[in-house]
């Protein structure tokens, strides 16, 4: 099941990518709409992170191409932001929270330029948006997992992009941070920015996203959540795993009874 976006911001064309010579993504062909909060969902090893890395040109493609804003990535790099998984950096690095957020401005600065007053102002403002302005001068090793995730989000906001790829921004965060991040993402999409999120929790996926991409090495489905988040398609994505299947049944049941509390 594949629904094409009317006004596509991201286009994957017959993309095949391999990791260590073993293909992990087969013939991904889809378009993603502007101004949507898009969730990439699938089991472990489905190639979710690989898909957004491929979109950011972070790994070589075996075949196919990706176009963003109908252009190759290099022409629109400043309009695109990528948030890596939190675990990929050394949080003992000798640097302060504000310095990390300032790194979001580096893409706009030339070789010799240093972040200026205006950049600092923007970085502070982004920290305020994620509720971390009190931590600006803190060393990053003193942050909790949720705070680290907020700092990464602030750095992405400082890039002032139109399209965001985020790798597991909700992993290992507490409930308060989860709802804070979600409301920022929703605010961004309300401003017609597009946010593509790799997500592994089916439970919350049902509530977070407008558009869902179901992935298991190949594209199972892509489309608005009400068309795509169905038991059949989820079963197809997750295969015959019984525990997952029963979980899915439970989820679909819950979705039909909208009594679940929103934080």
């Amino acid at each position: 099941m594949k629904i094409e976006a009317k006004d596509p911001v991201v286009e994957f064309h017959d993309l095949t990518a391999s990791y260590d010579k073993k293909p992990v993504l087969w013939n991904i062909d889809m378009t993603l709409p502007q101004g949507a909060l898009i969730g990439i969902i699938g089991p472990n090893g489905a190639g979710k992170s690989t898909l957004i890395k491929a979109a950011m040109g972070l790994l070589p493609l075996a075949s196919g191409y990706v176009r963003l804003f109908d252009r190759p990535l290099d022409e629109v790099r400043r309009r695109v932001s990528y948030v890596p998984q939190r675990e990929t950096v050394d949080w003992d690095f000798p640097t302060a929270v504000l310095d990390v957020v300032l790194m979001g401005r580096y893409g706009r600065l030339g070789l010799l330029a240093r972040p200026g007053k205006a950049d600092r102002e923007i970085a502070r403002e982004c920290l305020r948006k994620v509720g971390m302005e009190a931590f600006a001068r803190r060393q990053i090793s003193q942050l909790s997992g949720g705070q680290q995730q907020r700092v990464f989000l602030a750095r992405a906001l400082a890039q002032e992009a139109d399209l965001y790829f985020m790798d597991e921004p909700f992993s290992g965060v507490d409930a308060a941070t989860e709802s804070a991040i979600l409301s920022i993402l929703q605010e961004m999409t309300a401003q017609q920015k597009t946010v593509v999120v790799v997500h592994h929790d089916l439970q919350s996926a049902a509530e977070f996203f407008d558009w869902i991409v179901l992935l298991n090495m190949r594209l199972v489905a892509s489309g608005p959540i009400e068309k795509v988040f169905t038991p059949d398609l989820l079963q197809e994505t997750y295969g015959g795993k019984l525990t997952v299947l029963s979980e899915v049944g439970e989820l679909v049941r819950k979705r039909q009874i909208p009594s679940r509390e929103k934080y």
Partner: protein
Amino acid sequence: MDAFYIILTATLIALSCGLLGCFLILRRMAMVGDAISHAVLPGIVIAFLVSGTRDSFWMMGGAALLGIFTTFLIEFFHKRARLQTDAAIGVTFTWLFALGIILISVFAGQVDLDQECVLYGEIAYVPLDLWITESGKVLGPRALYIAGLVLLINISFVYVGYKELLLTTFDPTFAASIGISISLWNYLLMGAVSMTTVASFESVGAILVVALLVAPPATAYLLTDRFPALLAATAALAVAISAGGYYLAAWLDGSIAGAIVTVAGVLFGLAFLFAPRHGLLTRRWRQRRQRQALAEAAAGYRE
């Protein structure tokens, strides 16, 4: 005057090494300095055989090329052969160093080089090798000028590429996502490390270079929690260990290079024990004070 020349040369080299070492330790590549400092040996020998002179320019060129080749080999074994980084480093540099030794022994008659001098160097001879112009004017030790030039190149390099070096060190994936080439900056940094290593060979020897690349940044890392502060503390330590090392050697009437590394080691030990935030003993004292404060508060509460 000799003391001044020796301390100044040692300081300039220590500053160069420390500046690059700050990036190396944060990239978990401290031992790449060790690898490069040994692996450039065949480069030096080949440069000598090709050029026929022991001119520093040729030596440095040959060594810098070999240094980059070493980095390339390490990356290659790590990525393609799926070998652990440290194993890749170990295999690469021992092999290249052995190659250098064979070259020296085969061409022993023609090469005015020996591995002893490359490995250990002798900083005490710095004031003896003077740069004298054709008109007979004495401009001071040659090694001092080389060390100064290398420091100038390193400072310019880090000044120009500060953002890029910092970002590819802290978060390479993010750096790549905004269009900064990770491998370009890695090779530039490794090129700078090889150049520095070779330029420092003659005067201080490979072992001291490795120590200067790692010990001052590692000590400064324990004392600071911002990158600019790390650089500043490393620079201060570079000056302190050069001067301290010289006077220790003079007092003991022993090897200057050995004394410099000894002082670096002692300062590292002190930082390990007494660093304000992370020191072993400071942490203990802080915990004890907290326990006492808690106990007092609890006692007060009970009353």
